[in-house]
């Protein structure tokens, strides 16, 4: 089982990683053309499209080149280039249908907003298929729970890792956390990009989303940096907490948890 999971994770990485030169994403970044994606791509692209619409294009899988120009690319230079690359519009960039991606120019895809959550779901399905119906998958901030015994999850304070800003109960759902604290490499340089401006966002500093799948929870955790929760609630079913740069915190009404305020 462990080997099966490791192989599946490796296969996912080999498709979607921006940080290895043998990945499908790297090939697409070098040369335009048509590329066949594995079967798992449809669900991932589908979720991205929903988020793109629900956030008025603020969440986008096309922030890869922008992140590279900020220094967050293969080799980890972490030094911004003189000119930041803007984020291209989805409508101008690619077509994806029946598992095939078509591009007209080199394109750097970045699935960081929801890719890890999706992989967590995939691993969860492997476990269920093997008859394991009680488990917790913890992919460093992205958690999927299944089974009878709920778990209590502390929400890590983005400015002090020894503290929690709250606790939630998780039962048969996914909780994904997102914050701009760790993946940050300079003044105003971190990985959560507003695709409409091409800039890292600074108003919201941490989010947590709870949804039925880790794919949604992960994508929504990113979206909550860039869109109004009430607007997202029209298209998605979720609970959330989010914290602002001024130290204030906000939660959904029906969240099964408490905040330490």
């Amino acid at each position, binding site marked *: 089982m462990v080997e099966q999971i490791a192989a599946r994770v490796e296969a996912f990485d080999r498709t979607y990683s921006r*940080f290895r030169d043998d990945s499908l994403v790297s090939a697409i970044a070098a040369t335009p053309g048509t590329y066949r994606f594995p079967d798992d791509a449809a669900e991932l692209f589908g979720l991205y499209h929903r988020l793109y619409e629900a956030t008025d294009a603020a969440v986008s899988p096309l922030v890869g080149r922008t992140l590279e120009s900020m220094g967050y690319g293969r080799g*980890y*230079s*972490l*030094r911004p280039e003189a000119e930041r690359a803007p984020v291209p519009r989805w409508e101008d960039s690619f077509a994806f249908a029946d598992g095939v991606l078509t591009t007209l120019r080199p394109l750097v895809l970045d699935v960081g907003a929801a890719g890890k959550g999706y992989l967590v779901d995939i691993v969860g399905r492997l476990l269920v298929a093997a008859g394991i119906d009680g488990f*917790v998958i*913890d*992919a*460093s*901030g*992205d*958690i999927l729970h299944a089974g009878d015994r709920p*778990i*209590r*999850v*502390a*929400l*890590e*304070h*983005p400015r*002090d*890792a*020894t*503290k*929690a*800003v709250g*606790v939630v109960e*998780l039962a048969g759902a996914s*909780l*994904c*956390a*997102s*914050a*701009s*604290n*760790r*993946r940050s*490499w*300079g003044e105003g340089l971190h990985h959560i990009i507003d695709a409409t401006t091409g800039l890292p966002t600074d108003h919201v500093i*941490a989010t947590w989303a709870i949804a039925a799948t880790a794919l949604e929870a992960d994508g929504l955790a990113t979206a909550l940096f860039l869109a*109004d929760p*009430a*607007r997202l*609630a*029209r298209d998605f*079913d979720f*609970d*959330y907490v989010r*914290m602002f740069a001024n*130290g*204030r*915190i*906000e*939660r*959904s*009404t*029906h969240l099964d948890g408490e*905040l*330490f*305020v």
Partner: protein
Amino acid sequence: MNTQRAKYPFAILTGLTLVGALAGCSTAADGDTAPASDGGDTSSTTAPDQADATTTTGTYADGDYTESAEYQSPNGTENVTVTVTLADGVITAVKAVGDGDNPNSKRYQSEFAGGIADVVVGKNIDDIKVDKVAGSSLTSAGFNDAIEEIKADAAS
């Protein structure tokens, strides 16, 4: 923000006759007025504080009139649909359905204390009993090494 706007859909109750279509003031009104029976003069949009006016500009056929509107609340844009039942020129029933009444959508609110979101105080993780901690994901060795290099360069 004009919070009176949020109460506008209900101002229609005070009129003895159906005066006009529901509409947000500065936001566009959604939907259309559909009387259950034909005829009926659904006159033009009126401003909220004129909703109490009882002067009629025409006669209205009996039936149900439905209008939808958007309004701004601290939570963002919200929708409401109001159905008014008219009989002999008198409103006999009013039904208002907002986003929060739709069982398929959840209403999200901020935790407000006096209209301002609460400030985090926090607790030590060691002092609370939890199974897991959820924060931003850990960075890879490659990333961490690069950060160390940058710091070293800055120091030299």
